């Protein structure tokens, strides 16, 4: 991809009075990456996105895009475009006029404007609905219109603020596939804010996990998921057990746990819950220190050697499956 269009955050800080919403974070997004900013609400991910977009002033630090400092440029001059959480389509304009809005603002003549808007609507498969008003569209259609509107400015970076949160679960999965496809086709950087870890894992090439105004961990999605560095990351991404062992906290993936006889195991436990999940069985056990640990066993594994509630078991894992945690 085009090396020149990397997006970089340099000790980016946002303060609201005495509270620090974003605390000197730094990250380098390579051009053409699909990146997710992931974290619980109030972790500073939305503020970060809004600072990149230029809708929020920067308290400290800077943002560069393609080596150009864009920290204090107006939103439209940055080479970024934003897709808003509720899509923010202009309710009084047709879909076509919404998409063509930025061209109208820059004084492009009507014919060119309509043609370009037409191309964009074709890209998101909305040609048939071009003359509708936003209120006459479904959530998914509104999202496509908003996408077309953001993309018509030919941005180098598309910023998406919880783009799927307003959709029902079924549509959410379909739209996320479309987002990913679109990003691959366009080859531009997408920065996507979400609090849903499944969404982040499904979409992102890289994820940036934020907590308490700081980046907890960032990197290639698989690396972050496979080797969480803190208890927060392990818990937030899910499918991990965070266990306090004599030599410190570790994270072990639920599907890396094996049920063994008590004597041979790293941890003894008592089964407190068995949950059948179709392809898998989730087996929850209490282990010393009143901790709960969940083992995800394949149905064959479990029903080949069924267990009962209250039964004493041993839990074991391969040494390399455990990751020592910082906190």
């Amino acid at each position, binding site marked *: 991809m085009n090396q020149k269009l990397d997006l970089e955050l340099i000790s980016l800080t946002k303060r609201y009075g005495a509270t620090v919403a974003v605390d000197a974070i730094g990250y380098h997004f390579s051009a053409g990456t699909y990146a997710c900013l992931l974290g619980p609400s109030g972790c500073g991910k939305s503020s970060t996105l809004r600072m990149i*977009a*230029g*809708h929020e002033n920067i308290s400290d630090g800077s943002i560069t895009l393609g080596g150009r400092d864009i920290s204090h440029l*107006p*939103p*439209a*001059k940055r080479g970024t*475009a*934003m897709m*808003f*959480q*509720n899509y*923010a*389509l*202009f*309710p*009084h304009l047709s879909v076509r006029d919404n998409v063509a*809005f*930025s061209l*109208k*603002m*820059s004084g492009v003549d009507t014919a060119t404007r309509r043609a370009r808007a037409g191309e964009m609507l074709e890209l998101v498969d909305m040609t048939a609905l071009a003359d509708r008003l936003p209120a006459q569209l479904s959530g998914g259609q509104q999202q496509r219109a908003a996408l077309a*509107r*953001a993309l018509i*400015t030919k941005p180098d970076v598309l910023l998406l603020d919880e783009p799927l949160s307003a959709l029902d679960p079924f549509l959410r999965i379909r739209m996320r596939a479309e987002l990913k496809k679109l990003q691959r086709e366009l080859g531009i950087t997408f920065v996507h804010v979400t609090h849903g870890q499944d969404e982040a894992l499904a979409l992102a090439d890289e994820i940036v996990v934020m907590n308490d105004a700081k980046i907890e961990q960032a990197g290639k999605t698989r690396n972050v998921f496979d080797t969480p560095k803190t208890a927060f990351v392990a818990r937030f991404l899910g499918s991990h057990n965070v266990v306090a062992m004599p030599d410190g906290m570790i994270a072990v993936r639920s599907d890396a746990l094996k049920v063994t006889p008590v004597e041979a195991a790293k941890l003894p436990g008592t089964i407190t819950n068995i949950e059948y999940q179709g392809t898998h069985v989730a087996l929850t056990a209490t282990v010393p220190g009143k901790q709960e640990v969940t083992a995800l066993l394949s149905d064959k594994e479990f029903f080949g050697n069924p267990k009962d509630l209250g039964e004493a078991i041993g839990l074991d894992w391969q040494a390399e499956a455990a990751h020592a945690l910082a906190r």
Partner: protein
Amino acid sequence: MRNNSVIGWLLAAPLSLVLLVFLVAPVAMIVVVSFWGATEWSIYPAFQFDNYEFLLTSNVTFRVFFNTLKYAAITWVFTLLIGVTVAYYLAFHIRSQTWQVALFLLCTIPFLTSNIIRMISWIPFLGRNGIANSTLISMGVIDEPLEWLLFSDFSVILAFVHLYTLFMIVPIFNTMMRIDKSLMEAAADAGATGWQTLWHVVIPLSKPGIMIGTIFVVALVMGDFITVRFMSGSQSANVGRMIQNDIALLQYPSASATAVILLVTVLLMIGTLLRFVDIRKEL
């Protein structure tokens, strides 16, 4: 079902009754009387078109109606400009809701005094030896007192604007407050300047409020007689003054006919306005 419809009628009855007694009946009365006849000393029931014929063929009627429309149009322009500006400032530039409410209440404070008092208090200010003239003279801007400050179209319109701007501010502020703030950001994201955002986003979305404010102001100015009387020093006339004069001379049929024509004019204007914007979705 039967029971429900009875309850429905009962629920609608009190308001219908109030409207019937206090709106429909008086208007019907005015319409009826407008066809009556009158002599210098009496009025008599009749069904004749004399009043209308006299009004619609009189040059004076047209001049007075034109004057009334002129007041309404100029007042509308000024109240609209001030209304949009104030509402925009309150809705988009005041960040804290406490301040928004405080400043909004500040706008309504003049309304705690009576119309007449607010109107009359302009007189010492604008008069020949009033504050405005003496200040301008002492500043050396003018040598002679300005004659057109008081008892002129200027003072009439000034008073109208002063009295009725709030009726423009309130509905416009109300619609502007409902505009999603992210639309402003979306406009900025699309490269719109402040003015472009105002013209292409804020104003179109404030149209219902503008329309409601317009109806208030137009209806108030068209029906007014006291402001014109005081502020023009009885030198200008509008339709309200014409009706008032007729009533003073006990020419009720003629006054009624004028009132009916005024009512029809205002209804036509409002009807036309409503064709442009659907205000029902704002109410």
